[in-house]
């Protein structure tokens, strides 16, 4: 891994961590998701700092260039995050659906009560 890429990766992971913390402070990300992102940043930071780790990793998974190992790790991490978001979206969608239907029933009830007045 070249020093340039190493520096870029370190700066990127720091900036990402700062952005996540900033958004959390403004209550734009919930604490439980902050934790996931910070862990991701930390992992990326450690891997970037110890450039040798990528050589070991590249050797382990059988790729020639350590940069490709970076991409593979990043790809797997992103895939896991997307999977996690699918679960969260599904949960929200179920809750939203139920809430919408209950709202429809409540509006009907209010209309009936207003008619009886």
């Amino acid at each position: 891994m070249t020093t340039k890429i190493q520096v870029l990766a370190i700066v990127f992971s720091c900036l990402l961590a700062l952005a996540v913390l900033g958004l959390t402070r403004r209550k734009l990300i919930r604490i439980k998701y902050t934790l996931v992102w910070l862990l991701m940043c930390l992992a990326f930071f450690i891997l970037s700092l110890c450039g040798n780790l990528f050589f070991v990793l590249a050797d382990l998974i059988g790729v020639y260039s350590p940069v490709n190992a970076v991409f593979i790790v990043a790809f797997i991490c992103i895939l896991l995050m997307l999977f996690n978001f699918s679960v969260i979206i599904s949960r929200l969608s179920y809750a939203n659906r139920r809430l919408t239907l209950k709202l429809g029933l409540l509006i009907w009830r209010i209309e009936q009560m207003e008619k009886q007045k």
Partner: protein
Amino acid sequence: MLNKALVLILTYNEEIHIARVIADVKGNLPDADILVVDGESSDNTQPIAKKMGAWVISVPSSLGIAGGMEAGLMFAREQGYDYLIRIDGDGQHEAREINHLIHPVVNGQADLAIGSRFKAKESTYKTSLTRSLANRLFSFLVSILAGEKIYDTTSGFQVLNGNAVDFLCQLRNFEYSEVETIILLKKAGFKIQEVPVTMKPRVGNQSSFNFIRAFFYVFTGFLSLLFTINCNYRRRQDFDD
């Protein structure tokens, strides 16, 4: 004849048919309450239904037929109805057939009665190729999984009793689909009966069932069936009290 029956009509831009459908229901089931669950129609479906004396609940169209049916199930449960009768708002289902369809449910022979377009040998009901293929595929799969021949798994003309309504409302993250409901009820020990009915061909606005939707419908239906067969739900006896 009926203790407490709710007729559920699902609509989306059905201003041409809705008045006649409600009038037909009233003529055939004068004691039943009528609930129209409308998917936020842009035409006059809602005002016409209200004018005809039906209750109207509006739900976002994005929730589809499933959302409408779930609203109807929740309503029937909350208001303590003994029977939930579902008919379509496009005038395909004839209200005079309801008395015929509800018979096995009232007599305790079935918890869910399905108005079947294909059960009668002399049936001449015509449908598009995509619908026909989807129907045949689901009929084959559901019949295997349910352990009895079900000819019309996608019929929207149905009668459920209070126990079946209670059961469906209590399922966690339940999203209604005709096919899945049959398996869920069957697995939980509910009785299902198909009653041959005549249905009119669709007139007026076009059906939304095109090839892409058919593919999506079959694919998601097939997946949900796969997961449904592995579910273990409380048996019907738990809901009898």
